[in-house]
């Protein structure tokens, strides 16, 4: 194709302009890339500064004598890191990876001995703060109720041996949670568990406030196909130095039935500093006669406690500012079986803690803490266990 010189010049000009545009675009791309990389680098550096680490390493040396007299030893290592990253003042990420390693000669009755020898994220969530509400999204701990051992209004951890189990080892759930303050001491707390279809998932709402010296809360949980739960919990002082708490849950079942679970607690500290904590638990789903125990439901986890009536008595003696001695007795009032758990704790150095713990189980045969052999293949019933726990906090 022959072109006139003018046209040719125009084309050259256009080409030149096009190439200029391309050059400009390339330049712009480089500039943006440079600032993006530079900005990202700055962000990473500043983010790294905002990253906060803490955690602990714990070593448990355990000795156990089972019901039939078989001895066993174990070494349980726990490493947990808690990392908080603040993207802004109002937006953060919390992750809690942990690695547990157990070397044992025999099976051990350890509540936290799950998912061993692998990296697990017990908690991993984003949290967004605003004046109106806090939003938490991800795997988190949702703890409701005022009870110490039993929390019937808490569907995730209704029964925890709080004197023996670290809070970090309790069940966490993947959920969306909104906490909205209502005044100075009141608030609204709502969650939706996110790992099941909508019809099956749990949805909870709790409203709390303070009246005089009492904290009051009312809650409702729709457990999807598992039924509904209406809860009430109260904590405060009736008279000087006597603290009381009460937690009540009315639960319906998928089959259309209903039952009540309640906790009644009292705390008192004597003049010499000795603390006393008593809790009575009524389990409307439990049986008063051990012949009626639903061992199958307990073994698959749809039931937390077998009997109807329980009592917990705990004492805390503060020997000095760094040394405490605690005893806990958990008794099944229906079958007279019991658990005794003394703990001696000493903060041996600024970041080092030493715990000496023991667990003794007793009671009549075929009772909750001395189960029938078929439900206790490892022979934990009537066993005796002692632990030396050494923890380094960082």
């Amino acid at each position, binding site marked *: 194709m022959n072109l006139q010189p003018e046209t040719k010049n125009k084309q050259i000009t256009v080409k030149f302009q096009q190439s200029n545009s391309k050059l400009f675009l390339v330049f712009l791309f480089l500039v943006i890339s440079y600032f993006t990389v530079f900005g990202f680098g700055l962000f990473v550096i500043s983010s790294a500064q905002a990253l906060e680490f*803490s*955690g*602990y390493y714990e070593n448990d040396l355990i000795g156990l004598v089972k019901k039939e007299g078989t001895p066993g030893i174990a070494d349980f290592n726990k490493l947990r890191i808690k990392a908080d990253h603040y993207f802004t003042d109002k937006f953060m990420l919390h992750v809690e990876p942990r690695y547990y390693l157990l070397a044992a000669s025999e099976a051990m009755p350890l509540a936290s001995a799950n998912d061993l020898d692998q990296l697990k994220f017990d908690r991993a969530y984003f949290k967004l*703060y605003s*004046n109106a509400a*806090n939003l938490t999204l991800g795997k*988190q*701990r*949702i*703890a409701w109720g*005022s009870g110490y051992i039993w929390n019937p209004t808490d569907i995730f951890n209704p029964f925890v041996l709080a004197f023996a189990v*670290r*809070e*970090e080892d309790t069940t966490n759930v993947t959920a969306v949670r909104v*906490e*909205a*303050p209502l*005044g*100075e*001491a*009141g*608030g609204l707390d709502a969650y939706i568990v996110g790992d099941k279809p909508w019809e099956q998932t749990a949805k909870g709402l709790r409203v709390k406030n*303070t009246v005089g*010296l009492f*904290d009051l809360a009312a809650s409702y949980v729709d457990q999807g196909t598992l039924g509904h739960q209406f809860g009430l919990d109260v*904590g*405060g*002082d009736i*008279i*000087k*130095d*006597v*603290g*009381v*708490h009460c937690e009540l849950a009315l639960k319906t079942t998928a089959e259309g039935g209903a039952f009540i679970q309640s906790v009644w607690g009292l*705390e*008192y*500290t004597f*003049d*010499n*500093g000795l*603390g*006393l*904590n008593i809790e009575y638990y009524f389990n409307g789903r439990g049986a008063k006669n051990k012949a009626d125990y639903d061992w199958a439901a307990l073994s698959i986890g749809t039931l937390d406690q077998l009997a109807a009536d329980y009592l917990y008595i705990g004492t*805390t003696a*503060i*020997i*000095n*500012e*760094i*040394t405490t001695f605690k005893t806990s007795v958990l008794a099944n009032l229906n079958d007279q079986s019991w658990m005794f758990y003394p703990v001696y704790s000493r*903060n041996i150095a*600024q*970041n080092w*803690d030493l715990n000496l713990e023991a667990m003794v189980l007793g009671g009549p045969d075929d009772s909750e803490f001395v189960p029938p052999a078929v439900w206790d293949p490892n022979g934990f019933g009537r066993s005796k266990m002692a632990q030396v726990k050494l923890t380094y*906090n*960082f």
Partner: protein
Amino acid sequence: MKYKIEILNTKSETNSKFQIPNSKPSPSGRGGMVRCQWVRVVWILAFLICFEVGSLRLDVARAAWAITGEEIIKKVDANMTFKTARTEAKMVIHVDQEIREKTMIGYDRGTDTGYAEFLTPPRDKGVKYLKIKDNMWMYLPSVDKIIKISGAMLRQSLMGSDFSYEDALESSKLLEKYTATLISEEVVPLTFREAGELVAKQRRCYVVDLTAKVKDVTYYRRVVYVDKELFVPAREDLYAMSGKKLKEMTMGDVRKFGARHYPLYMTMRNLLRANSQTEMFTTKIEFDVAVDPKVFTQGNLTK
């Protein structure tokens, strides 16, 4: 109280002088009677002199104390209270030869609202406290839960220190629960910072006895030593109803902030425990700063 003890001692001495001659009459008969009468006269004179001197001293003391115990406590409150404050502090706990340190930040509003957050050590990091009037809550990050500190827990140790939760709660409103009586004056050491160094000075203090007028108090009696000039408490002894001394608190590192004098150092000894003492160093303090009211809410505990 000290003055009364002096009188009693005087009586006691004179009584004993009087009784000894009577109980063992002189074997010399009449001479003994005369001596006995003289002793009586001397005793009566001594009693009158003591009484007069005592009355005189009492009047002088009353004249010197142109202030009541209640007024002293009110002046201390005026000096020690503020609209708002932001503090950074270090708590040092001594047990035998062991030392534990904790650091914290705190916000206070008036006398009955406060917030504190522990920053170190790692095991206590993120533990927060909120006090609103007579209620106190603790937030434990490991549980992600707010726990109400009820009456029974209030007597227990605050973060392993010699302070109890109740010490933190009962710091105000003393006159609502106690009757204040000025009982004496004493010279008590009080430290001041001069050229960067802490210097102990012997300061004349009012000794004010605070006796409970209501039943629901942890310490039935408090004896407060208040600097006469600065109206800063230099020392406080805390007693049970039985009269047993439970705790000893001292203050120091008194500094001037505007018109107010404020102690930045405090010690507490729980006498029920052997060889323990907690020191509290206020490393930074700002008075009457703007504090977001949301700081003093339970919502802030979970942040």
